[in-house]
């Protein structure tokens, strides 16, 4: 394996990406199969991607990604589009701040960790802890997701994160949720959500197409019918999902369940402040 490159803004430019990066106009292509080192180390790939961003590219296409982690973390270039062919590793688009990432394959754990804004579109499955603590932006997953998805998503001011899962989500979806919207469609059959749904949630909303039993709810979460405003939001998200994946999800508004917090102040009255 090639020695790890840790660029630090030195006078000299490192030679990462010498073989695999090609830039035509403002479009960059990084073909990992052209690299003599396979699989390429993640530090090298991230270095090459930053190089492309520094050169002002408006799109970066990654080919032959083999589990490289932390891709596009903290990427902040407005309007940047990143296409990932292959399988990215954990923490794809962590702290993402504006760009759009489209994955033509499956994503791993912690996709969109603490993202601020931007979009992550996964043409496949995304696994555990997707969208942890997102404060904005959008994550669209065509397939299934794993455990603890959408944990501690929050909204503030005009920023509200949204996530649409085409398939199913497993246990602890929306745990600790403080804002934002998660929509689970369950298009591939099976129970759309697992157990401990929305455990400890104190903000935000989860819409599930299909059935949610009371035994699936975590503490702090409650089932309620959709308001006309909720239906508008669901329709808007369905539109974006259909556009992203070319699907036709049926517009059957009667079949949705809304899960929302029973209180925005779960700890109100929990503590005794007596000066003992």
């Amino acid at each position, binding site marked *: 394996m090639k020695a*790890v490159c*840790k*660029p*630090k*803004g*030195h006078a000299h430019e490192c030679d990462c990406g010498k073989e695999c990066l090609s830039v035509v106009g403002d479009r960059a292509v990084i073909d990992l199969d052209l690299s003599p080192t396979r699989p390429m180390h*993640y*530090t090298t790939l*991230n270095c090459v991607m*930053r190089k492309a961003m520094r050169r002002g590219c408006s799109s970066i296409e990654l080919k032959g990604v083999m589990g490289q*982690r*932390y891709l596009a*973390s*903290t990427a*902040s270039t407005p309007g940047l589009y990143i296409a990932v062919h292959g399988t990215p590793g*954990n*923490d794809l688009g*962590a*702290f993402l*701040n504006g760009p759009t990432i489209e994955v033509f394959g499956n994503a791993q*754990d*912690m996709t969109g*960790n*603490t993202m*601020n804004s931007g979009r992550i579109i996964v043409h496949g499955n995304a696994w555990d*802890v997707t969208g*942890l*603590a997102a*404060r904005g932006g959008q994550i669209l997953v065509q397939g299934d997701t794993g455990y*603890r998805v959408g*944990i*501690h998503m*929050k*909204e*503030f*001011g005009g*920023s509200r994160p949204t996530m649409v899962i085409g398939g199913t989500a497993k246990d602890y979806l929306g*745990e*600790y949720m*403080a*804002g934002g919207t998660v929509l689970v469609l369950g298009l591939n059959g099976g129970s759309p959500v697992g157990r401990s749904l929305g455990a*400890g949630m*104190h*903000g935000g909303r989860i819409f599930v197409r299909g059935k949610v039993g009371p035994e699936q709810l975590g503490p702090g979460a409650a089932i309620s019918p959709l308001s006309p405003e909720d239906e508008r939001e669901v329709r808007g998200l369905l539109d974006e999902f259909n556009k992203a994946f070319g699907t036709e999800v049926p517009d059957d508004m009667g079949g949705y369940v809304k899960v929302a917090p029973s209180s*925005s*102040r*779960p*700890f*109100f*009255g*929990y*503590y*005794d*402040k*007596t*000066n*003992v």
Partner: protein
Amino acid sequence: MSETPPTKRLDHRLPERFVPTINYDLCRVCRRCVNDCSYQALEFRESRVVPSGGCVACGRCIAICPASCIEIRPVPPQFAPHGNWSERSRRSILAQASSGGVLLSSCGADDPNPAIFDDLLLDAAQVTNPSIDPLREPVETVTYLGRRPGRLEVYDGKVIVREDDTPLIRMDMPLMFGHISLGSISYNAQKALFMAAKELNIVAGSGEGGLHPDFYQYADRICSEVASGRFGIKPEYLKGVAAVEIKIGQGAKPGHGGHLPGEKVTTMISETRMIPLGTDALSPYPHHDIYSIEDLAQLISVLKESTEYRLPVGVKIAAVHNVGAIASGLVRAGADFLTVDGFKGGTGAAPRVIRDHAGLPVEVAIAAVDRRLTQEGLRNRVTVCAGGGIRSSADMIKALALGADVVMVSTSAMVAMGCRVCQQCHRGLCSWGIATQRDDLTARLDPNLAAARIVRLFRAWNEELKEVLGAMGIDAVESLVGNRDRLRYRGPNPKIAEVMNVKHIGEGWG
């Protein structure tokens, strides 16, 4: 929890703990004390100021009384004496039987157990190793925070600094401000800390509450914190600062998260933390992406990748019983510095049961971490920061000698600003404008004056450190770090000395 309404109400009101007493011969009836008491423990009735209950001994009235006629008296025991059933135990039971709530408290653990620091005595040089006068000769206290290369590379007679080494943060003294978030303390209080850090050329922790836009001017002296709530994290919060620290735990509440009550989540706090206005701000107990050292390594790596390897990334843990092995894991996971927070450390709010009963004294924790890392050949690679109940320069010096590179101080800095340690931070009514979000109270604290007071305190402590180093015949603080030979234990339990690898008093070098 089902609440059955009592058939007959029995008022179990607890006796007062403190009573402000006014000398009416001197009182000018200016009523400043009444207006300033944020706990409303004084009122004006029938042409004089009288106590109205609820005094917490914050001392604000004493400080502002122009006639110096107020004295706060602790109320003598109101319960029948009992050697086992302390007043506090009985008050706690009565309170909880009325509320059914979890007892909340703040500041550090206040149980009367003596600090181990007080059982340690420092050494001094005599005859064979002459002492140094720090006013006349240089005694170095510059300290660096971050990962050490572990070895020097010399080429052609010159020391080569390897390019892939993360830069070290230079500090003029082995002190840093601990992590106190905006939210737990006021805007003016945090500003004072950052101003003081800049002036002293040391590092201040941001706490986990994000960084207010006004404070980015101090960013090169701020260590930003990534905690389980992931509050306020944005690219500039990671990239523009001196260092980034992942908070796993806090000494005052190991294993516990944080709950900033909704009434404290003002517009400013909501925007800084990037959380919804007016809802309880929860920091989950664990990081939900960290269930193992390998997971922690991923968070460290993604932060290093995000900051392009320009900043040290550290990890803070609460001092717990297995702290040595955990510290070893942190270093192996890639932490450039680690912070150990002892159980006497401060907090803006913590359940009393955890604050008073969980964790490890920082003295033992430092020694355990230092020993374990040394045994595994890792100690020379990382900076060890430690804090939790550092009350004086003597505590700082002993912490250094036990094995800390940098000593983290928070409560002492707040006391310098005006805090009287009345332990009411969790109520948000701080009469000194420190632990509050109420604008009228915050305005009482002048950040310039508060910063100047902290700067004077820390400079004095650093002078005291130099005095002690000189007396030991040591000319650089690095030579004191982990130098347990310069400590002796005189306390009641020699096993503690053995665990800390400190000799007992009377034992010489041999």
